[in-house]
């Protein structure tokens, strides 16, 4: 199950939904808003998503993880809207009979979520400038939304 959340992610109900007597391992990943990115002090950020396509693509990713690693269940929630330092931006929980599959599936899911889902992040830095992460380029900084320019991650 995947969903976007406009409010704080509550993880207990998500983990409850995974409970299974066959489960021997649960691996949870929490992506948290850091106070810095690529050397700059981040004070706030905003996530924007193309939700209909995002949900479809995320459900594909979860199904792939299930098929590839033989896990019992997986759930993922991604925040949209304004977040501040320390807020959880994304949560992934996987349960499986043994730990190896749970770790592998968890890593697969978050890596694919970050690469494939239509979600964008606008960071606001100390000093007030802001930037759409991964969309700014040294070569055409003048065309960018802010003076901040930096390379792809």
């Amino acid at each position, binding site marked *: 199950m995947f969903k976007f959340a406009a409010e704080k992610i509550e993880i207990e109900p998500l983990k409850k939904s995974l409970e299974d007597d066959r489960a021997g391992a649960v691996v949870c990943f929490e992506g948290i808003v850091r106070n810095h990115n690529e050397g700059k002090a981040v004070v706030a950020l905003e996530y924007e998503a193309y939700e209909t396509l995002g949900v479809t693509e995320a459900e594909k990713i979860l199904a792939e993880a299930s098929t590839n690693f033989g896990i019992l269940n997986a759930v993922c929630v991604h925040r949209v809207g304004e977040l501040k330092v320390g807020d959880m931006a*994304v949560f992934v929980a996987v349960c499986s009979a043994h730990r190896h599959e749970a770790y592998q599936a968890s890593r697969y899911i978050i890596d694919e979520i970050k690469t494939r889902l239509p979600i964008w992040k606008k960071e606001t830095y100390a000093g007030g400038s802001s930037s*759409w992460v*991964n969309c700014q380029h040294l070569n055409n900084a003048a065309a960018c939304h802010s003076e901040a320019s930096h390379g792809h991650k």
Partner: protein
Amino acid sequence: MEIAVNKGAEKDMVTVNVTVRYFAILRDQRGAASEQLSTEAASLSELYDSLATTHGFSLKQDQLRVAVNDSFVDWREQLSEGAQVVFIPPVAGG
């Protein structure tokens, strides 16, 4: 322009009505979340080039993906009447 006219004559150039939705930096640069267009563009690729010129989008086509009606599609795909088109800037989830 000459080329466009020739091509139109050869290919039965058609005008289709599409909706384009904009997200993130494209929305900021366009100054709108969506627009409805009548276009003669022969492909999604042509449509983006034309809009990028008009609105001064900073992203090159090879930095984007494109979706039609909530599915990723190929840039060479033709436009169909009533399509909802989304150009997808480099993502940064997680």
